[in-house]
């Protein structure tokens, strides 16, 4: 990989950045939104210059907080007139730099569009504005006896708009799929200022091209998502959580394959390696076994009869494939503790070193053990500290580099290691990102992943829907 992503973007930090008030469109934005909804002060805009991705930041020219779709449309119009780029953002929990601004841009923060518009308990849908926090969606559904399954680790903070823009996954992906699988409709403001409603409350719809799915995962580069119609499910009547401890990582990987091969699809099949186990236990104190090489957190849900059956079979399979210990959570409280512990893995690891770089390589399930070995070998060779956890059931791994962005030499080695890890993921028939998106961080690897023809087509689509390159420019592909 040539070019240094981190160097380049760090160079563009504070010193070289112009002060926001210089943006020519600020008076028009003030006039339309009222001054309270437009930030331009140097200190005020700094918090909107980065997301959860390590080492990427750029101060924007202005930050705006629209409250309605029509305000979004007007902001787009103003930005078009002044040829000023717009970067849409929610809570900024992205892990690929998808919402890191460019110089002299408008950051459009949708946190003010946080109304829950309609809970339809008969058709099992929920209509929300893009700035609603994912956890609030889960809670609304839960209170009505329903389930919104996608549960990215950041769900307490992240917004549904961001989840849709990145097509976020989560712990329940194996059985329930990802955000895409629950989006029935979208309201999108296009780069020309027109508003499109894509989708409806119907389970089936084949009238014309599926634009909805094109906008899902497009990382704010093709349009601005302002409303989302979500599908909800009946809440499963029963749920059981298992914790299986392994002395060898291979045994954990084999157990996962054996479970799937036995045609059991648990809703969660999470993996934690030794380093992650230690960090999480140190942070959350839930009694994880510290002598384990690998740990599987398994959750089965559904009809009570089916769940009991699954849990018994899973426990037997884990033991047969070398689990040292298999424990069932005694009650819902203990199960919730375990899930929370897993969710805290990123935060726990982030305490160890100043910079945490969380990656997102995904491989076919059969290659999991090989991929983890590759990660460990690459990290060791480059003298790096790496912890790995992730969604084993989906083949989606989160190798996490514990590093320090001020150590230029170490960052260079991290970058080399990341390149090698992505290369290995591709060789194993996998992908460079399963749920975090391309953003800025994975841009250098995208062409390798997609091939020239597909890569060129992505550019063509970007140019078609955003001919002036105003929407989140420089992310995913350069038009």
């Amino acid at each position, binding site marked *: 990989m040539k070019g240094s992503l981190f160097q380049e973007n760090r160079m563009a930090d504070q010193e070289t950045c112009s002060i926001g008030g210089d943006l020519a469109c600020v008076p028009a934005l003030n006039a339309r939104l009222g001054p309270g909804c437009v930030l331009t002060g140097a200190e005020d805009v700094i918090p909107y210059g980065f997301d959860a991705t390590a080492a990427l930041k750029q101060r924007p020219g202005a930050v705006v907080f629209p409250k309605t779709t029509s305000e979004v449309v007007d902001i787009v119009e103003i930005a078009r007139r002044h040829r000023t780029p717009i970067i849409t953002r929610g809570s900024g929990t992205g892990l690929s730099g998808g919402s890191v601004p460019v110089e002299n841009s408008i950051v459009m923060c949708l946190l003010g569009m946080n109304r829950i518009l309609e809970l*339809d308990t*008969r*058709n099992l849908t929920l209509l929300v504005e893009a700035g609603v926090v994912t956890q609030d969606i889960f809670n609304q559904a839960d209170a009505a*006896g329903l389930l919104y399954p996608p549960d990215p680790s950041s769900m307490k903070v992240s917004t549904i708009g961001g989840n849709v823009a*990145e*097509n976020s996954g989560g712990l329940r992906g*194996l059985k329930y799929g990802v955000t*895409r*699988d629950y989006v029935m409709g979208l309201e999108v403001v*296009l780069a020309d200022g*027109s508003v499109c409603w*894509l989708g*409806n*409350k*119907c*389970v*089936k*719809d*084949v*009238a*014309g*091209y*599926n*634009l909805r*799915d*094109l906008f899902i995962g497009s990382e704010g580069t093709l349009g601005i998502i302002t409303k989302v119609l979500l599908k909800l499910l009946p809440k499963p009547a029963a749920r059981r959580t298992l914790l299986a401890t392994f002395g060898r990582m291979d045994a954990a990987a084999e157990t996962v394959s054996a479970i*799937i*091969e036995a*045609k*059991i*699809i648990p809703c969660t099949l999470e993996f934690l390696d030794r380093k992650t186990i230690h960090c999480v236990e140190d942070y959350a104190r839930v009694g994880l076994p510290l002598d384990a090489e690998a740990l599987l957190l398994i959750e089965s849900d559904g*009809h009570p*009869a*089916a769940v*009991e*059956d699954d849990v018994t079979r899973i426990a037997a399979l884990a033991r047969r494939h070398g689990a040292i210990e298999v424990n069932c959570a005694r009650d819902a409280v203990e199960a919730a503790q375990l899930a929370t512990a897993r969710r805290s893995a990123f935060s726990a690891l982030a305490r160890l070193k100043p910079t945490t770089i969380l990656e*997102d390589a*995904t491989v*076919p*399930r059969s290659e999991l053990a090989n991929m983890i070995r590759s990660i460990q070998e690459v990290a060791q060779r480059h003298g790096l500290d790496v912890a790995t956890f992730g969604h084993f059931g*989906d083949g989606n791994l989160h190798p996490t580099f514990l590093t320090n962005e001020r150590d230029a030499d170490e960052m260079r080695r991290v970058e080399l290691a990341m390149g090698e890890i992505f290369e290995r993921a591709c060789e194993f*028939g996998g*992908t*460079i*990102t*399963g*749920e*975090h998106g*391309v953003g800025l961080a*994975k841009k250098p690897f995208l062409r390798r992943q*997609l091939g*020239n*023809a597909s890569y060129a*087509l992505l550019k*063509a*689509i*970007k*140019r*078609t*829907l955003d001919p002036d390159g105003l929407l989140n420019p420089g992310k995913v592909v350069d038009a």
Partner: protein
Amino acid sequence: MAARKHNIDRSRESYDAATSALKRALGSRVRTDEESLFRASFDGSKLCYFPDAVIAVRAERDIGTVLALANKHGVPVTVRGGGTSLTGSGSPIRGGWVLDVSALDSIVIYEREGMAEVGVGAKISAIQKAAEDAGWYYPPDPSSKDHSTIGGNIACNAGGMHGAKYGVTRDFVLALTGFLPTGERVKWGGRFKKFACGYNLRDLWIGSEGTLGVVTSAVLKLVPKPEAKWTLVAAFAEEAVALGAVQALIGRRLLPSILEFLDRHSVQCAERATGRSLFPEQRGKPLLLVEIDGTAGEVAAKQQDVLAWAAEHAVASAEARTSEEAEKLWEVRRKCSGAMFELGDAKLNEDVVVPLFSQVAFAGFLDELQRSSRLPIATFGHAGDGNFHVNIMYHRDDAAESKRAEKVVQRLMRKVVALGGTITGEHGIGLAKTPFLRLDRSEAEVRAMLAIKHALDPRGIMNPGKIFEVFEVWKHRPIKIRLPWDHR
């Protein structure tokens, strides 16, 4: 199926020179004999347009060759699998070349991973059988499954009876390989479930009816084969009661694997066709067919719930304990469609969708529509996902009836859109639904679709004339031919 003399439209452009070049490149794989051209000239809609050549694709690279030449000479290309589409999406209305991909029919089951990698020409029933032999299950099952190919199912995002619980074709496609209209080979996704890598062209291809490229193979997700199944058929006093009972069943959060509705016309047609009635005391009453699947314990528990529900809402019911008994119950659903031609010699076959809880209102509307139009309208369909097959029967040579039938379609489409539904749930737009696309989709959305079409297919060679250009199907006469999947 015998070839007959048909009038070939000679007013359109001639692609003779291009076809000669194609023959030089691919030799005997290029067919131009009358029989081959006729067989590729229509789909399940029986709208017949002769192509200039048919290419019997033997290897993927043939497709690249064909597309490169088609782009150079501006020749329309229509991809063809089983030819079962009901909208004319497979009829080569602008002539040109038909790519017959039915020979690319490989099926590989990845038993350990619960996935299948299939060639685009693989038949749905063959995929299902291969999956089931390995203990897995591929749920999408359009009624054409013995004849239709996975490529056609992907191109039209085919549904089927299991949609409410399991979803449609889109929900089972993990990855696609194929060619862009410009002839370049591309691959979206792989043998894994998560993919957040650049724009999602995979889902854009799915349902694009062969207008954005050519799929050559797909990776499909499989699910564990359900351990047990149980079927119940129940008769109701009238349509609105049956559809109200659907809402009650959904309210019980039972999530049946199948929930099929038949109105009284459909039931009566089936009764005449089979010469018997499921409920001799309640002849000709609307029916619901309910199937529950899952583990044995789950099915046993849910069964009690469904029986209680039937006791509350139905006038009669019967359950199937064995697959033979279930087969008998299903006969009524399979026979009803073909039997409808007793009601008229022409059928406008729509597949509209309304939100689940608008179904009762929709039943009332259909009632009123029959009375005011004085045409028999037989409706059956997938009540679990609000997807109705509305069959407007009329006599083609009766000018007044034909006019009324056209009016009925117009009113039907306006109504479903007003109810928050959509004009097509599983058949696609093709030719037949083109007059209504802009009723359902906003100008901005259609503009975006056309811009994407242009970005992918700058010369407009892929399946031209479909989706976007208005074609008034009621003004066109289908050919008289009996297809292998016709019910009668």
